């Protein structure tokens, strides 16, 4: 082990370039973390989801729904059973979305995939448990899944909940939604502005 480390350690005459190159790498990495708002992805804040503008219609429709008062994006779209599962699913889904967005592969009409739909369904049940509970027996009605849903999801009947029925990247062109802030600090912008004025 110490042998490998020894081999990786640059000779003394290479110290400066190696330190500079590492500085560049770490600087770029830090910049990427900063400019992509990466830290925000750890939070539950819904504005995180509109870091990419393709989610604007989903944000705008949620924002005008009653769910806004109680449930954030994550409350429905990532598992809430335990913290590991939550971040695992979030990372898996998020990396897929980031890849699609970067490669410009997003479809005009975004439709939820089976894995995502399953999570949402579980979260519907998590909050609206009392709706599917037989209050006479005070236990979850076993027959509910089998006889009443037959494998259907809640929103196959509750079709407006919460994103409405018209689904397209262009369905809410005039929605007022929070804009992603410029990553450039105000003082640099001011500096650049005063430069251009002169």
């Amino acid at each position, binding site marked *: 082990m110490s042998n490998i480390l020894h081999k990786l350690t640059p000779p*003394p*005459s290479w*110290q*400066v370039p190696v*330190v*500079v190159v*590492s*500085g*560049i790498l*770490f*600087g*770029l990495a*830090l*910049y990427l973390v*900063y*400019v992509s708002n990466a830290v925000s992805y750890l939070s539950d804040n819904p504005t995180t989801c509109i870091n990419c*503008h*393709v989610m*604007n219609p989903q944000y705008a429709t949620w924002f005008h729904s009653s769910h806004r008062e109680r449930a954030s994006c994550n409350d429905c779209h990532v598992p809430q059973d335990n913290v590991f599962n939550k971040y695992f699913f979030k990372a898996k889904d998020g990396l897929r979305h980031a890849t699609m967005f970067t490669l410009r592969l997003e*479809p*005009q*009409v975004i*439709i939820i995939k089976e894995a995502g739909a399953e999570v949402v369904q579980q979260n519907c049940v998590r909050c609206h448990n009392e709706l599917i509970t037989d209050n006479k027996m005070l236990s979850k009605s076993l027959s509910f899944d089998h006889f009443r849903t037959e494998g259907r999801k809640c929103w*196959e009947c509750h*079709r407006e909940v919460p994103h409405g*029925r*018209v*689904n*397209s*990247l*262009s*369905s809410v*062109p005039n929605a007022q939604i929070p804009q992603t802030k*410029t*990553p*450039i*600090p105000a003082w*640099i*912008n001011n500096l*650049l502005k005063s430069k251009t004025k002169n």
Partner: protein
Amino acid sequence: MNKKRSPLLNWVLFFATLIVVFFLGLLASSVTERRAEQQTTWKPEVQIAKFEPRNEVWGKNYPTEYNSYEKMKESNFRSKYNGNAKIDMLEVDPRLVVMWAGYGFSIDYNQGRGHAYAIEDLRNTLRTGGPTGPDDGPMPSTCWTCKGPDVPRIMNEEGVAAYYTGKWARLGAEIVNPIGCADCHNNETMELQISRPALVEAFQRQGKDITTATHQEMRSLVCAQCHVEYYFDKHREGAEGVNYLTFPWDNGQSVEAMEAYYDAKEFSDWTHKLSKAPMLKAQHPGYETYLTGVHAKRGVSCADCHMPYMSEGGKKFTDHHIQSPLNNLENSCMVCHKEKTAQLINDVYERQDKIIENRDILEKLCVRLHVEAKMAWDLGATDAQMKAILMDIRHAQWRWDYAAASHGASFHSPVEISRVIAGAINIAQEGRIKLARLLIELGYKGEVPYPNITTKTLAQEYIGLPMEKLIEEKETFKKNLLSQWEKEAEAREASMPVIYNK
């Protein structure tokens, strides 16, 4: 260089580089942002003049829309029954040849391609014949009316009635740009506007004002300038003898209302070669039939499905690749319908299959009507004996054509189209009962044989079409007059300036 550098110096160097790179990144961000601003600030490249017919000139200012418009040059999609590929419909269904005997459609009829081919396909179809000069050929100038944005330009120069005067060949060198921008858009505001007088006049006669239409209604009405039933009125006050393009909507837009309109005027498109019936040719009542369907009733416009909204880079625009939604289900149907693609396609085909089942029966009845009526004439039937029968033939085939020529109607309005076809089957059979009585009276016993019309060639021979001569005339036209038109048009457009903004 020192063999032993202080580790502190190394750390200082490391963090200094890191900070410099980070701020360089921010500077790069700023540059990218400013460049993006430049792209999103819209600057028109050219000035678009009123009546500018060249789509590519408009395209310079609206590249996103124009790029999608250009995709209409694709002709590689075939759905179960239609699509954007050229299909010889007379070959697919040779019964049509007999049903249209004596009329241009029996010579040549293809599944239409995209708007971008409007001019090319009209020049090439045998229906427009082989004119040798501006006053020659079977078709009037009115036939150009739906073919492109040169039409409003010429109407403006000549006047509407004067434009409708003369032969098709008269305007061959003038109308060269296929259906495009100026047909639907205002050149200054880009708002949707009606460029063809026939639709405005039809609204006026119904006591409606088309200028009060909402934007959503306009997203269908611009299509209704052409995708409607129409005829050439030769008795229009002040324009007698002119082929004045008119929509027969005065009594309404149902199959019965338009039929009553034509019957009252004793109008017929042609006299059938076999049965001598005064026939009506339904053109393409796509808009009228769409209005009776559930999508129209829920406020869905033509453009919502055939030109769905798109978004690129967060910018919303309308897809100008006008096409069958069956080739674009993900962006059209699925905006509202959450079912799977295959399921949605199946829903469409199911309606089409069921309607074509009865349409086929009706077609065979129409062929029999013409053949049996011809037999009656051959056996010496009189006009008085034939009168009611000929009206049945007219009404049955008009209904068939209303259902068939409206193309998408078996999906747009399946219930109405089923009703129309069912009604027509009854009329056709009533006519055949009258014919059977008459044939017995004339001494004919047994069944009048159904002709052997299994192919287009056989059917065209049966009705006596000189196909070789017609094809030869067309080839001569292409070699001589058509190349002359192209040269004239090129010279004219070269002298039309394109003014670039500085």
